[in-house]
């Protein structure tokens, strides 16, 4: 049987990939996908820990995370569309009307 720690390591790797993608990528959609990757990495952790502790609690959490991710996707894509309508670009570097 595959030890639980492997799943945790995979989850950490996926989460790091998500963070890296968020910081490196220059397209709004890709940045948004990186966030989704982070959430899914967390879900993997939850399922692993559910196996370790309490099968119901951890897995219920996963369902709620998925639901919230769906709500976020709906709102996020709507915002991305409104950005595209206003600016006709999805490049992060060009969304710069306001600077620090």
């Amino acid at each position, binding site marked *: 049987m595959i030890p639980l720690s492997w799943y945790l390591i995979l989850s950490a790797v996926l989460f790091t990939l998500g963070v890296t993608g968020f910081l490196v990528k220059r397209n709004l959609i890709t940045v948004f996908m990186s966030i989704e990757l982070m959430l899914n990495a967390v879900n993997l952790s939850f399922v692993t820990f559910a196996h370790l502790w309490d099968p119901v609690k951890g897995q219920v959490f996963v369902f*709620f995370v998925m639901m919230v991710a769906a709500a976020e996707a709906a709102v996020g894509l709507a915002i991305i569309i409104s950005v595209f309508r206003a600016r006709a670009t999805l490049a992060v570097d060009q969304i710069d009307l306001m600077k620090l």
Partner: protein
Amino acid sequence: MTLDLLHLMPTDLFRILPEVVLTITGVLIMLVDASLPPHVDRRNLGWLAALGTVFALLASQAQLALLQLAERTGFYGTVETSTFSIFFHVLICGIVLVTLLIALDTLPENGHHKGEFFALITFGAVGMCLLTSAVELLVVFIALEISSIATYVLAGYRKENGRGPEAAIKYFLLGSFATGFFLYGIAMVFGATGSTVISEIATRVHTGGHPGLILLALGLMLVGILFKVSAAPFHIWTPDVYEGAPSPVVALMSTAPKAAAFALLIRILYGAFPALQPIWTPLLWLVAVLSMTVGNLAALRQHNVKRMLAYSSIAHAGYLIAAFAGAGNTGITAACFYTAAYASMNVGAFAVVTLISGYEDELPLIKDFRGVLYRTPVLGGALIFFLISLIGIPFTGGFFGKFFSFTTAMGGGAVWLVLIGLLNSGLAAAYYLRLIVSIAQKPEGESPVPPVAQPIGVAVSAALMLAIAATLVLGIAPGEVLKNAAEGAYELMPHSMQMVNSLVFF
């Protein structure tokens, strides 16, 4: 674990009564909005939302009756009614009410999806209220998202502007990013302790568990929450979002979600990780110093009023976090009080800014505020009053907020933190005074720019009055609010009653 959902007690529903009232109000607004013909003005829906908020306020007062019961939690131990949660419920409902009153008079006449605007504010309030009474991390997460998603949309409400969508996308992306960290923290704490109930986590952290995982969890959750309260170094989004979002929305989101997030921060730190206090105190020391210094230094360089107030709000998060250097109960009391003081003066300041700059921010710069005191003495005077409170001059809420926060930090032995805080308060006075001077200067030239909103409407006057009254009461007679804050703190941490008496001498 049995899922006998039919065995919910009536008291369970009573425990989330304010949230239920707000949800029903929001749904009602959406339904009426959808059934009205398109050309009808939706302004009255704002009154409906305000009415619902008043009912929610009454509902949270009615919850005081629940405190008599032996059982403190409901819904299988996921929500708790305590003086702590009621304190924040009243505060948040108050802020939402004032925001709705501002919006009622300042939103453009028609074609602006007003109905949805009011509904979104109401739904956001549901999340913020729930966040302060949740004692289980799943509910915490859901509440955090309910409040966040509503504010993401509200931030981008001025779609035509270009800055609106930009503010929304920045807020949304960075907010979801921070939520990801918070969620990963929850997963780690679940892995380390096998529980997501805050009180259970505390006992299991105390008896061991996996120290590495727990530390990681604490760090990740802190990132998520500190982002929501816009403390440095997680503050980058704040000025851009405040500049791009409509001013009434900024009045809301610079205060209410922050108050809720501070309540969450208190619950997580003092409720779940009291055993790790030696670790998180220095961390928050650093965050407090960074927030104060970065916020104030950056605010000095701003020409845009809303950006300046954004950086000032970062600095204020710093002053508040300084209270966490105080051990146990006093830290919580001072932080709760500061939240109330900050909320009342900041919401008031943004109310005036909305009126002077206009909904579309026609007059956004500090130099545009020149001579406001002569053109509309009421607005100029009110803004000066709020700025004086933000500086922290006595007889205003801001003074006592800072006073309690710094006294607490001093009691916790953080002398340097207090010194840096006091220096920062002096520094902050510089940019607030710059704006005050600009307001009080005689308007130059032959054609002074008239303030946009003339005459001042009934609703927004009521909002201003409420904010001024709250700031004054907190500055002249802070005793009652402080007592409530201390009671809430005591209920949260009954084991550490040392020193709290030193604060309640008023």
